[in-house]
């Protein structure tokens, strides 16, 4: 069978769906190939992209990942890290975090945080989008095709606003987010425990910024989440902060008094703390050392043992156990009924964490897979399911938080309980309180508590255009639907007329569609410089693919299928593209790609029609291209 390029134009849009783990500390991208899921590495073999973004407003320079991390030490004011902790939050939610990071928060951050970076303000979805864009490029380079669709993972305990913010970030990065998947659930896919007939599995996911516990029932390829719980504000960052505080407190006693207020020193301490943490997972003691060459007697060093470290962080680790017990209770299970425990996330490398988990579940947890990569691998498997690659697996996930609406007296009436399998829906009937009332306000919340003040406001909306009638007569049915991403959509209709009602939902925390549109333009403008170089690289990559395809088609089919004249046309276009390829003008390269595409369009069609029409019907272009 000859190899056929369906689209001779364009760095072809890839039909591939990649899986992305957008982590607090590191992010990575994976895909499912013939040999199963694998992470995509850079030239030097690194899978992890540090979730750090550096921006310099003078040079309008943007760096992501390793490069940004290097700058973090020298220019800490220009870098943002751990942005995931700020997703879907307002300034009031993050006071504690702000006390330990050197970020400047813009005014007007009540509903969406704005990071002030020089003269520009970036929101968490934008910062995340820069990271996603980097991963997208990495994947596109890897495939030689533009990757446009992704599955992105989030902590299972993320609320609606945090999920939506993640989806927005994907959109801003030029990705169609096919699904938001919960990290522990993704990890369970990657662990391949599905080989067992039936098993109850607990996934303990302790990452850089968040903690999740999910309990799943695995049966015949169905991964049914029974219960999930967690803390979106508990992770390796908190452990780092304990060590940082210890070091700073001790520095205050000596010649370095006051030095930690300098962001540069603070970042050096942070780096030291993180290294010590890592070392204490492998060895039972390590050295903390800081010295300043310019300062006489300016030296700090002390040894810290694993036991000391364990004592320092034991309450943090202890805090993960409460959600574990709650999840077990919600699933109606005892720890003894758990068949397997799976460890995910970098913080599960800490021996104390492993010990506590072993004690709670009374069994040895699985640590075979790299805890940094397992979530991305699972996301890639889910991506494969969504792109039609396999139908033997099915994830049935749940919503982590109850959904409710505000009723009289500030009480929350639950309409969808936590741990309900998603998609899940509920219908509520609303009516008017006074005669001729034409609008009804609805306040939607998430959380387990009774009172509005103790739950998380999700959105407010008004049912409008109700015809004037006596109080209590109108009957407006509002349908709340939590989709497979765990994101809420609301629709309403008049029960008597059957007419759909308009709803304007104002998210309590998050970006409006207009804001996102504006950001799309912004990021385009901003990336102009950067873009030109990038464009050339991309255009050349694309040109290579197209030229190769055209050459191949000419060699294999042209004499048989098309006229000499047409053949010459293609050859000419090919030559011109080759010439443009050597130059620096990406616009010209694109133009010539299009010209070649036009010239060879007819040939492509003939090849398509004749050869593989039947086989093609249900397959994606990229798969066809690979034959």
């Amino acid at each position, binding site marked *: 069978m000859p190899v056929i390029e369906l689209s001779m134009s364009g760095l072809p849009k890839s039909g591939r769906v990649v899986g992305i783990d957008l982590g607090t500390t590191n992010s990575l991208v994976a895909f499912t190939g013939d040999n199963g899921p694998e992470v995509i590495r850079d030239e030097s073999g690194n899978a992890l992209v540090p979730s750090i973004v550096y921006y310099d407003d003078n040079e309008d320079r943007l760096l992501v990942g390793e490069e940004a991390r290097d700058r973090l030490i020298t220019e800490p004011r220009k870098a943002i890290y751990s942005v995931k902790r700020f997703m879907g939050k307002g300034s009031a939610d993050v006071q504690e975090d702000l006390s330990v990071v050197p970020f400047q928060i813009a005014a007007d951050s009540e509903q969406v945080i704005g990071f002030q970076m020089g003269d520009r303000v970036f929101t968490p979805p934008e910062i995340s989008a820069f990271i996603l864009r980097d991963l997208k490029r990495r994947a596109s380079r890897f495939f030689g095709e533009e990757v446009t669709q992704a599955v992105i993972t989030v902590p299972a305990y993320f609320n609606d606003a945090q999920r939506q913010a993640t989806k927005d970030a994907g959109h801003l990065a030029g990705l169609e987010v096919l699904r938001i998947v919960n990290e522990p659930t993704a990890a369970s896919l990657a662990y391949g425990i599905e080989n067992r007939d039936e098993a109850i599995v607990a996934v303990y996911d302790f990452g850089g910024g968040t903690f999740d516990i999910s309990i799943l029932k695995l049966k015949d390829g169905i991964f*049914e989440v029974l219960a999930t719980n967690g803390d979106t504000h508990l992770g390796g960052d908190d452990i780092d902060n304990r060590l940082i505080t210890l070091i700073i407190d001790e520095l205050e006693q000596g010649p370095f008094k006051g030095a930690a207020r300098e962001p540069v020193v603070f970042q050096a301490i942070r780096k030291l703390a993180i290294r010590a943490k890592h070392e204490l997972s492998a060895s039972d003691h390590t050295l903390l050392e800081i010295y300043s060459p310019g300062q006489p007697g300016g030296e700090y060093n002390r040894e810290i043992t694993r036991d000391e470290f364990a004592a320092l962080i034991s309450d943090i680790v202890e805090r993960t156990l409460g959600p574990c017990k709650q999840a077990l209770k919600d699933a109606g299970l005892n720890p003894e009924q758990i068949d397997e425990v799976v460890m995910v996330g970098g913080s599960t490398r800490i021996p104390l964490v492993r010990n506590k988990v072993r004690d709670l579940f009374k069994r040895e947890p699985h640590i075979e897979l790299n805890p940094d990569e397992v979530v991305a691998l699972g996301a890639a498997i889910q991506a494969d399911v969504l792109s039609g690659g396999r139908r033997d697996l*099915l994830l049935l996930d749940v919503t982590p938080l109850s959904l409710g609406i505000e009723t009289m007296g500030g009480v929350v009436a639950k309409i969808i309980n936590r741990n309900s399998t998603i998609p899940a829906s509920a219908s509520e009937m609303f009516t008017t309180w006074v005669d001729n009332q034409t609008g009804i306000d609805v306040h939607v919340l998430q959380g387990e508590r009774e009172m509005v003040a103790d739950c998380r406001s999700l959105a407010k909306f008004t049912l409008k255009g109700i015809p004037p009638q006596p109080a209590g007569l109108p009957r407006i049915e509002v349908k709340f639907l939590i989709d*497979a991403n765990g994101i809420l959509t609301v629709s309403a209709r008049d029960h008597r007329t059957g007419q759909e009602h308009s709803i304007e939902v104002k998210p309590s925390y998050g970006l409006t569609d207009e804001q996102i549109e504006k950001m799309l333009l912004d990021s385009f403008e901003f990336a102009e410089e950067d873009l030109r170089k990038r464009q050339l690289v991309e255009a050349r990559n694309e040109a290579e693919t197209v030229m190769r395809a055209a050459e191949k088609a000419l060699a294999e089919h042209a004499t048989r299928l098309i006229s000499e004249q047409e053949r010459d046309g293609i050859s000419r276009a090919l030559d011109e593209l080759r010439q443009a390829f050597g130059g620096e003008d990406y616009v010209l390269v694109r133009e010539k790609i299009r010209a070649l595409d036009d010239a060879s369009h007819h040939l492509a069609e003939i090849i398509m029609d004749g050869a593989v029409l039947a086989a093609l019907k249900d397959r994606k272009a990229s798969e066809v291209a690979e034959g």
Partner: protein
Amino acid sequence: MSEAVVNKAQVSSARCSHCGAVLSGEHFCETCDRIQPVAEHTDFFAFIGLPRRLRLDETELEKTFYALSRQFHPDYFMAASEAERQASMERSSMLNDAYRTLRDRVARAEYLLSLEGYTEAEKKAPPDLLEEVFELNMQVEELKAAKKMADEDEIAEAVASLETALAGLRTKLAEIDERLFAQFEQWDSVLENNTASGEKRIVLDRMSELLSHRSYIRNLVRDITEVI
């Protein structure tokens, strides 16, 4: 059998939005195999393909749930038309809602009552418990007062007596559950034999009352547990 009747009752002359064939009320169009939106007023029993019986095999129910999940889930409709994606979302959310309701015995009974026109009954104390409930409320108030005064002895005494009461209430709850589940058999045989509607009412009334007692006691237990 009554299954077939229940299943098809809702559907009159709906047509497939894709090929226009008359629909038989199945999840998928019999002609073009496209997934169909859920007909209005479809109830959970009919949706899953079950008669309105109250005793059901939970293992079978799970099997059905998994099998239908594999047919409806949005994961498998990513490349389908907007209408099919919408229908898949509707069907899988309804399936999830139905499974959640029907797999739990109490929720199942409550749902049946709502289908049979019962509104959620007011939470009532069982008559034989009235006196005890009154006494318990007093004790709860005493405990609250003792806590305010930080009177350790009083607190310990009140807690101890409330704990004894709690144990009693839990036994009572188990008793009610047993009586409730005994009614399930009654209901199923009434349904099976197509008995006169008067008899049906009697069974439903009994269940409604038991459920109201049940939720009353549960609330009481919750309140007491909170105070302790």
